[in-house]
């Protein structure tokens, strides 16, 4: 995606989607967990702007931003959050498990670090088939303490797999600060343990993120193997809806709020790219309308029926024998 307005639109879409989702959950329309992506928009949008249609993605519990940046349908997303039949997962997954196979989006994940081996295996399959594509793996700072991170990066580097490991370091794992869950400041430096390049990028600068991702993707496609990208960013809200995030110092929060990736990029669009305020306003209006339609789509989607509960346990259930 080259038009900076497109990047801005995607970030606004994520921001507003998450704000709407939070409201709707407040109002009781969404039964499950929500881990809002607000504040980290530049990472998902910057990375996805560097991808091709053949590329695949694994995500996390905080996955709405990744889906939307990849071009997912907010209507089907809301429908899934509403637990309706037209949801991406037919109401069987919810926020933590949302997928869009058509977009190569292999799923959010309820297990911290769970997506890392999956992306590694996807990269292996892409390589085996000689596809000109990469597997992108999003995860957080906390996930870099899981064994799955270590085993997967070792495997990917050893086999020079076409994978991008994108760590969104938002400085907290749930309620625990980074310096209380790992003794290092730079997650990117962990790449050295696998003779893999590790880069740090400003996760609140969508253009910087896109550039870093494009470079890493180039390396992967050139057969030079995986890259670990540490995007430094911050979540504006609590770990999940309902978390007041009192464990974070006020100054820290304010400092990061002042670097709001959406607001700062909006200003740059005017200053650096000469985008007229009117354009931005109308674009923001489009997003509002799109979300309005999306919510209505979710509201009007039917609820799943009891009999569907035993569908999709197996692709082939041998006439139900496998279900007994």
């Amino acid at each position: 995606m080259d038009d900076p307005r497109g990047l801005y639109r995607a970030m606004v879409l994520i921001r507003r989607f998450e704000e709407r989702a939070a409201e709707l959950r407040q109002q009781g329309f969404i039964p499950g967990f929500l881990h809002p992506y607000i504040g980290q928009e530049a990472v998902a949008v910057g990375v996805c702007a560097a991808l091709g249609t053949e590329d695949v993605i694994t995500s996390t519990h905080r996955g709405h931003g990744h889906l939307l940046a990849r071009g997912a349908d907010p209507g089907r997303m809301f429908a899934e959050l509403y637990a309706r039949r037209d949801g991406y997962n037919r109401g069987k997954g919810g926020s933590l498990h949302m997928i869009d196979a058509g977009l190569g989006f292999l799923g959010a994940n309820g297990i911290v670090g769970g997506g890392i081996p999956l992306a590694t295996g996807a990269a292996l399959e892409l390589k085996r088939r000689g596809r000109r594509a990469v597997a992108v793996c999003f995860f957080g700072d906390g996930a870099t303490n899981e064994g799955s991170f270590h085993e997967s990066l070792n495997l990917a580097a050893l086999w020079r797999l076409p994978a991008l490991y994108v760590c969104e370091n938002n400085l907290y794992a749930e309620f625990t600060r980074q310096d209380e869950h790992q003794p290092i400041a730079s997650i990117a430096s962990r790449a050295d343990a696998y003779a893999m390049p590790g880069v740090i990028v400003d996760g609140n600068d969508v253009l910087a993120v896109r550039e870093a991702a494009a470079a890493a993707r180039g390396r992967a496609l050139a057969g030079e193997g995986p890259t670990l990208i540490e995007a430094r960013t911050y979540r504006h809200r609590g770990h999940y809806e309902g978390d007041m995030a009192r464990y974070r110092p006020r100054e820290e929060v304010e400092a990061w709020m002042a670097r709001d990736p959406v607001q700062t990029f909006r200003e740059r669009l005017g200053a650096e790219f000469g985008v007229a305020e009117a354009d931005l306003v109308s674009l923001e209006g489009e997003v509002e309308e799109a979300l309005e339609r999306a919510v209505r789509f979710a509201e009007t989607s039917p609820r799943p029926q009891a009999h569907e509960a035993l569908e999709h346990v197996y692709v082939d259930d041998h006439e139900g024998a496998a279900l007994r």
Partner: protein
Amino acid sequence: MRTISYADAIREALAEEMEADERVFLLGEDIGAAGGVFGVTRGLQARFGRDRVLDTPISEQAVVGAGVGAALLGGRPVVEVMFADFVTLAMDMLVNQAAKTHYMSGGALSVPMVVRLVSGTAGATAGQHSQSLEAWFVHTPGLKVVAPSFPADAKALLKAAIRDPDPVVFVEHKLLYNRKGEVPERVEPLPFGQGRVVREGRDVTVVSYLHTLHLALEAAEALAAEGISVEVWDPRTLVPFDWEGLRASIERTGRLVIAHEAPRRGGVGAEVAAMVAEEFADLLAGPVVRVCGANAPMPYAPELEAAVLPDARAITAGVRRALEGRLGRTPDATEASAVREGRRRG
């Protein structure tokens, strides 16, 4: 008597045992400053300090393993697994190390550790935050498995688990945390292997535990109105299991229904049904009936979740099946088998 919640009862047990024995300490993700995502350990770090209540990185294998290692040196770790589903990342430490070390060492070492598994659905928690995996641990020799359904039992059994010399998997259910119940000021540890008749009845025994046991009590109440007298029996600990207590109940009723949230296939109910079919077959007047979770992952949508979980209605229906079912072969078949036996003897 005062009533407190199941979560309060667990917290009290932890606090009292930490007070009484300074070898006892807690390990887990966000259990300290934050008090745990379900608030079970709230206030304990402030009270006992950061050396007794440790917040860990997200490293389930190393955290459970650290518990095992500390226990090998005589520590008394209590490890919280925030959602039981995450114990899949620590199975080697629990199954290959903790469960087997005493045996493999010929008794030279032991692992006095407690692992708290936050189990079951909390409603729309979906496939990876809702599992009830206790059957795996029942199938793992060397582990003890505890599953309290009431605040008083939770407190008494957790105290016993912490003092137990063996590794104990302590299964808690999310939907019970806010349930209140009577708990005396002073609670002694409850020895393992003592089931309990929660409600007396004459016609059928319903064995259940954790959240599903409370659904069984609802079912019993509903059936009482029809003159069906249901005995609800709570094993309280799954390993060791109070087979004599269950036998006594079946002797009274002659009929058995087993209900739990975990998927039916290979669940704890299978072991209960098998033991009864094997050892108490002579006491049964009808077939054993299981009312369990469906053999499916936990879906997100409330309508679907309701369809895979056992509820009071399903248990009621199960009780009816148990009362109507017939046992043994039709006369001629039985005779046929008698003939066979004759043939064999002669």
